[in-house]
């Protein structure tokens, strides 16, 4: 029975999910904008953060939200190191292809290490407020999903303010738009690119904690995330943060609504359908600018 309440509930859940997608896709978009890198390991870091949140809750008894205090700076540093130490050493001519392989290798290493350290067993955080629900116009929404959404929105807002209102944000956007010109006006583009990667990876830390709140995690889960995320950044137009956010909301909502008539697995194929359709009919994506035309 598809009652109005069920559809309403799906819309709410879709929007909540879309928020998380938007946060994670914005990180992927940042990498692509800065260096034309398709960062396959983004979702592996996401799962790593989720594991760290789970670990801090079960072993240390700390609320998973508090693990952010450690994971966000940690991931920022990892992102800077990744860009400065590895990706910037690749040959510029083959950077796009080789960086995919390198980040793929990192993703596989993380998956393997997670499997080694925590075994392949499925893990789930048990929280005091984990089963609490909020009734809203007949829709039941888990409190943890709201917290996850709140985290995503807060992080996205911070990212927006950082990019638009700070000097560093200006420098980062200038580096994305035209690295040579940015260097001419005195921006240290290498350093800015490194910090940009750090910020991108920090979104994975926030996203991972949000994810751990209400999802069962296992080491190979990241493959279920990287596909939808890559579809989102292509549909949104490679390199466009607002495009990625809009595509994330639309696709998240569609996926959630499709779960009513179809099962979860089939609903996920919407991302790939959107990806193929976008590339076949509008390869620059729906919000992409000059940048997306050529990749």
């Amino acid at each position: 029975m598809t009652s109005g309440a069920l559809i309403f509930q799906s819309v709410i859940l879709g929007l909540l999910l879309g928020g998380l997608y938007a946060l994670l896709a914005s990180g992927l978009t940042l990498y692509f904008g800065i260096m034309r890198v398709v960062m396959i390991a983004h979702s592996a870091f996401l799962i790593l953060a989720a594991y760290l949140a789970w670990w801090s809750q079960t072993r240390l008894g700390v609320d998973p939200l508090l693990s952010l205090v450690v994971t966000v700076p940690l991931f920022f540093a990892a992102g800077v190191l990744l860009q400065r130490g590895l990706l910037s050493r690749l040959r510029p001519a083959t950077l796009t292809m080789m960086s995919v392989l390198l980040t793929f290798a990192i993703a596989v290493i993380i998956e393997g290490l997670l499997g080694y350290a925590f075994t392949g067993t499925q893990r789930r955080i048990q929280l005091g407020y984990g089963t609490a629900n909020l009734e809203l116009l007949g829709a039941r929404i888990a409190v943890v999903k709201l917290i996850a959404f709140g985290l995503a929105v807060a992080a996205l807002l911070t990212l927006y303010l950082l990019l638009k209102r700070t000097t560093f944000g200006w420098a980062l956007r200038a580096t994305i738009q035209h690295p040579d010109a940015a260097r001419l006006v005195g921006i240290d583009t290498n350093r800015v690119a490194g910090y940009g990667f750090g910020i991108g990876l920090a979104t994975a830390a926030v996203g991972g904690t949000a994810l751990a709140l209400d999802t069962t995690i296992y080491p190979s889960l990241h493959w279920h995330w990287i596909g939808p995320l890559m579809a989102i950044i292509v549909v949104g137009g490679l390199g466009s943060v607002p495009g990625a956010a809009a595509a994330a909301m639309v696709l998240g909502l569609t996926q959630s609504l499709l779960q009513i008539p179809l099962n979860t697995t089939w609903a996920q194929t919407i991302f790939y359908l959107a990806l193929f359709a976008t590339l076949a009919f509008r390869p620059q994506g729906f919000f992409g600018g000059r940048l997306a035309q050529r990749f």
Partner: protein
Amino acid sequence: MPSASDPATTSAARRPAVTPARAARGVLLLLVVVAALSFPSLAPNPYVLSAGILVLNYALLSTSWNFVGGFTGYISLGHGALAGLGAYGTGLLVTKAGLPSFLALLVAALVVAALAVPIGYAALRVRGASFVIVSIALVLVLLLVFQSWASFTGGSRGLTVPRPFPDLLRPEHHRVFWFLFAGLLALALLVWWLIDRSRFGLGLKAIREDEDKAESLGIPTFAYKLVVFVVSAGFTAAAGGLYALWFGDLDPVFQFSILTGSYLVLMALLGGVRSLFGPLLGALVVGTALEYFKVEYGSTPLHLVATGLLLAVVVLFMPDGVLPAVAAGIDRFRPAQQSIREVTAAELREQRAGGAAAETELAGARPGGAPATKEGA
């Protein structure tokens, strides 16, 4: 066949006839062929033979991958999915449509090649990043579909493919399939070699080096990329189909695994994507290592770590393959090579005159030159 000792078909006067390097390559090729033909009788037990077939399958897949990866420089992580499609296509055509095994294999390869046209159309219109994304998406979406559509594909329970030769014993079965795989590999290598020497191949390599310049020189880059992608997909699917007929049991988790795709890339990169036998060499090394570790240590997550580390090392330090890396390492200890400007025009003329004289002398010493082709082929 690519043979070092067949200069006689072209005019021997214009090309250097049998240089030591070409002769060495001819001997090496002969050795490889002899080793391939004699392996089934040398293998001590059926297990070693079946492991050899797995390595051969990797070599075939990696060579098929190299049509796209080597010529155009577009890295596909999704070739595992094309092989899986070929395998499932063959299996389903045999079990559901009742086609004879090898006809089913051919039809499946052609169908996958036809499917590669729309996939390539979406993936290749723009540059590399989209291609990579599509190639990964292909694996993920096909895994979803083949797991969920259980009524047609058997889902997670897998699909059993009947053997093409039901009355053969297992060792005999392995032996037959060894030669089938080797034959298909030889065909793939031959096609790669032909493309490598053709104008088409030149255009593809121009795309690899600089796609903008290639386009401005009038190379129809999109059409070229699409054609070579379809060829690659066809060979990959045929390899997958042959695997289905040999192994007889398909599971979506293994057929549509992104890890398989990455093994192929690793093998080709390690061996060298620019050379004909690079992927074969890489498959020998990586495929053997994979089998060895599976036997010694079983399946642990450390497999993933080792694969990832090896891939990262290859990408960072030897993106052109291990052989060019080793050659560059040896070159360091040699005296620096002279640039052309350090040779005077007079010296150069003398060198050229000497070279031409030696050449004509050589051609004259071997009248006809035809007999030399025979043993090389």
